[in-house]
């Protein structure tokens, strides 16, 4: 068609063409309409030509579309092609496909419309299919997002956070309130997000849920919002109360999706309750196992720390233990069972008991570990457990130790650099499903030395190599050695865990060996008094006495010894004075014994005066008489004199 033909007078073919044809002015006014168009819109030529605009002949929706979309395109592009619109006709709507071309030179727009009734039916089916597909794709996406968030959630708090976030996120609500059922089924408000429905926080919105409709777990649209029942396997776990968005563009709540999310949330709450229950059983178990008090004996001190992993829900399989391996030989153990939760905790309990059961006089660390290999065979969760085991002879300070895949113990001497004990190593328990040859090693403690056993959470960090972590640990352990054992452990744990990003279980056991009790004999000529003072000072330091206590006690001891030598020996230079000391509950008990007879202070002014000095120094002094005389002095290891 040439542009000149556009404005030409219609001929017969134009008038009764099987499609609707029209010529419009540029503002849309119909200048000419053919018979088909007039028939489709059910109007006379006089009503239309020169009076109405094309958009007046369209359905309302199509009219808006024409004004907002088609007319602008026609002005800018000069044509629109194959647009689906409806004509408003006497027998209802006439769907047409419209093509329009602007002929600017002639000042007209030519329009052709073909009936699209059949095609529209087909397209409508296509569109419906497409909408359904898009809607289910959208529903599946929302469901998947919600389900993924719920399955990642830990515990009831985690599920609460996940479902409240999903409500105002992918579920598109303006706000949400979560009500959870307690053991008796009563609902209580647990949390909210966004702008939750306006309800009284003391009154659950669940009245409606008690009617029959809720029993099948379907979401309900109510005036105050949408109620989504959260059904678990056995009972209603709670109700999610949603406030739909009121934006003009927002979609109405999709009850199908909400019902499905409600079911998922109910099951997630089931799981969360179970999980918390099992976590709390595991926690209880671990606590009860670790709470067993260590043997008591003045010859050593043990301090321990246990810090559970993430959020108290992740109970791990770390443990420590101390018990008598034989008379005078203390066993100290730290171990780590692979995994978390109840399984790991119960495997830990069994392994801990097994260590005690297989330890016996004469067994020793290496054979003990081999026996444990056999023991872990049937207990799957205990396989690949690591153990550091040491036996300490409390009289000599000799330590026999062995590590099955466990980080090395640290020897923290009273003076000098710390040492990682790298000997006596072998593979983890039950590794490769067999019993292993195990090696062990020995090291001697000096009085005042400490031995540190721990699990990997104390030093392992993803961002640094293991050796570096161990060096940091050894350094930190040495830095705290002046403090009493409990403070030493607390300080070390705090220092080491400061930079931790991922919370892991941490077990720490510190053995403090002050060495054997102090015991010396001196002849009454006191030639050895100076040596005694040095030895006693050294011994006191090994016990952890502070400077004030050491000075006081050394002075008190020399005073008492001098007193004993002068008054208790009866003038015989070969007579002996015995000086002994040991620690009881942080208090040094110093005893100076001579063979003389105690006489009351009045007859012996000198002796009485010596006692006065001692009393002034240490506060607590007693005198025992029997075969000879014993002056007993008590003073705390630390702090100012009373």
């Amino acid at each position: 068609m040439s542009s000149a033909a556009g404005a030409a007078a219609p001929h017969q073919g134009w008038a009764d063409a099987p499609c609707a044809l029209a010529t419009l002015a540029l503002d849309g006014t119909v200048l000419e309409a053919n018979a088909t168009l007039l028939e489709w819109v059910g109007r006379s030529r006089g009503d239309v030509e020169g009076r109405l605009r094309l958009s007046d002949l369209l359905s309302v929706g199509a009219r808006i579309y024409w004004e907002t979309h088609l007319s602008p395109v026609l002005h800018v592009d000069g044509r629109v092609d194959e647009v689906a619109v409806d004509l408003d006709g006497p027998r209802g709507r006439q769907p047409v496909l419209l093509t329009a071309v602007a002929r600017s030179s002639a000042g007209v727009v030519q329009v052709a419309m073909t009936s699209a009734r059949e095609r529209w039916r087909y397209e409508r089916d296509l569109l419906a299919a497409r909408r359904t597909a898009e809607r289910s794709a959208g529903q599946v996406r929302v469901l998947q997002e919600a389900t993924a968030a719920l399955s990642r959630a830990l515990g009831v708090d985690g599920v609460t956070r996940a479902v409240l976030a999903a409500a105002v996120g992918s579920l598109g609500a303006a706000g949400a309130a979560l009500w959870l059922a307690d053991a008796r089924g009563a609902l209580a408000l647990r949390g909210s997000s966004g702008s939750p429905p306006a309800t009284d926080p003391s009154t659950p919105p669940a009245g409606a849920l008690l009617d029959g409709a809720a029993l099948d777990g379907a979401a309900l649209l109510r005036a105050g919002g949408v109620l989504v029942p959260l059904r678990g396997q056995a009972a209603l776990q709670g109700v999610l109360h949603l406030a739909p968005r009121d934006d003009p563009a927002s979609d109405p709540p999709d009850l199908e999706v909400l019902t499905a999310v409600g079911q998922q949330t109910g099951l997630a709450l089931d799981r969360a309750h179970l999980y918390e229950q099992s976590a709390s059983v595991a926690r209880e178990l671990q606590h009860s196992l670790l709470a067993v008090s260590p043997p008591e004996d003045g010859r050593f001190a043990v301090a321990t720390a246990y810090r559970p992993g993430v959020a108290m829900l992740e109970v791990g399989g770390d443990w420590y233990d101390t018990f008598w391996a034989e008379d005078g030989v203390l066993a100290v153990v730290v171990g780590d069972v692979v995994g978390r939760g109840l399984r790991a905790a119960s495997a830990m309990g069994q392994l801990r008991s097994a260590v005690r059961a297989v330890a016996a006089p004469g067994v020793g660390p290496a054979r003990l570990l081999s026996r444990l290999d056999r023991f872990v065979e049937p207990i799957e969760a205990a396989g690949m457990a690591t153990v550091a085991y040491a036996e300490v002879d409390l009289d000599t300070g000799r330590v026999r130790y062995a590590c099955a895949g466990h980080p090395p113990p640290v020897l923290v001497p009273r003076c000098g650099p710390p040492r990682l004990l790298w000997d006596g190593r072998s593979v983890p328990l039950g590794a490769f499903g067999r019993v292993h040859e195990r090696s062990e090693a020995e090291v001697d403690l000096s009085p005042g030395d400490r031995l540190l056993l721990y699990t990997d959470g104390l030093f392992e960090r993803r961002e640094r190599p293991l050796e570096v972590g161990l060096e940091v640990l050894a350094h930190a352990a040495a830095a705290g050695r002046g403090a009493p054992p409990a403070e030493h452990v607390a300080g070390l744990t705090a220092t080491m865990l400061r930079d931790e990003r991922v919370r892991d279980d941490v077990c720490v056991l510190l053995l403090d060996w002050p060495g054997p009790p102090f015991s010396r004999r001196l002849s009454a000529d006191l030639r050895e008094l100076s040596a005694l003072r040095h030895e006693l000072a050294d011994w006191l330091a090994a016990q952890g006495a502070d400077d004030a206590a050491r000075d006081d006690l050394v002075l008190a001891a020399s005073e008492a010894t001098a007193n004993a030598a002068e008054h208790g020996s009866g003038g015989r230079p070969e007579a002996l004075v015995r000086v002994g000391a040991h620690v009881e509950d942080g208090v040094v008990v110093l005893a100076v014994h001579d063979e003389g007879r105690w006489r009351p202070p009045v007859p012996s002014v000198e002796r009485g005066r010596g006692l006065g000095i001692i009393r002034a120094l240490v506060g607590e002094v007693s005198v025992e008489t029997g075969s000879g005389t014993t002056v007993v002095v008590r003073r705390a290891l630390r702090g100012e004199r009373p």
Partner: protein
Amino acid sequence: MDPLARNNVTVGGAEGAPPMVFAHGFGCDQVMWRFVAPAFEASHRTVLLDHVGAGGSDLSAYDPARHGRLDGYAEDLVEVLDALALGPAVLVGHSVSSMIGVLAAAARPDLFSSLVLVCPSPRYTDDEGYRGGFTAEQIADLLDTMDANYLGWSAQIAPVIMGVPHRPELGQELASSFCRTDPALARRFARTTFLSDNRADLARVRTPSLVLQCREDAIAPPEVGHYVRDHLAGAELVVLDATGHCPNLSASAELVAAMKGYLGAGAAPAPAPAGASR
């Protein structure tokens, strides 16, 4: 996010001159100002933008919560003006953008020297004592019509990109993008546009404004124009001798003349607009 990239902002006209911002209406993009904006390039710094979801905007910036209300689009506009920092602007808003401008001017009067509202309507659906022109069912009918052209829309992209033989002067870039947008976003924008009620917001505006109404407009009937004038403090109403809802395309010369008359001495004389002869 850079608001200028997000809204596909185009800046032109006289540097240092007072800014004039053009915001397009529902169904189109900034191209619809092609016959109007050039008329102000000598006297103003012209700023054109596409609302998120339209034209060359960043579709990924569409946020169902933010853009579910016209306030979200007003926030976008404020961010654009803040980012440009050109001083108080003349806002020229067509159709739904006139209400977006009203919301922006109510929130940030410092950014606007005057408003030019082309075919505004604060509410398209009828209400008690108010005639917006449509019922909610008729708006649903619009969504159906949009859906009916959904398939055609997808199918048409390819040939359109190949070129526009019948109007080569427009260039293929223009023809391939004009008034075409993601149908899902267009559907949401239709609901935001036609189901919003911003009547109460008119009273919050103190910026002087010009209301331009067409003699006949199927989308915004004359009484709506009067309503806007009556409820907007310091508003002037000019009825253009034009029909339809897009005088910026169909009667650009009249529109430009009315704007220049209103802006008065503030606007320097400009050459005849390029598209005015059509």
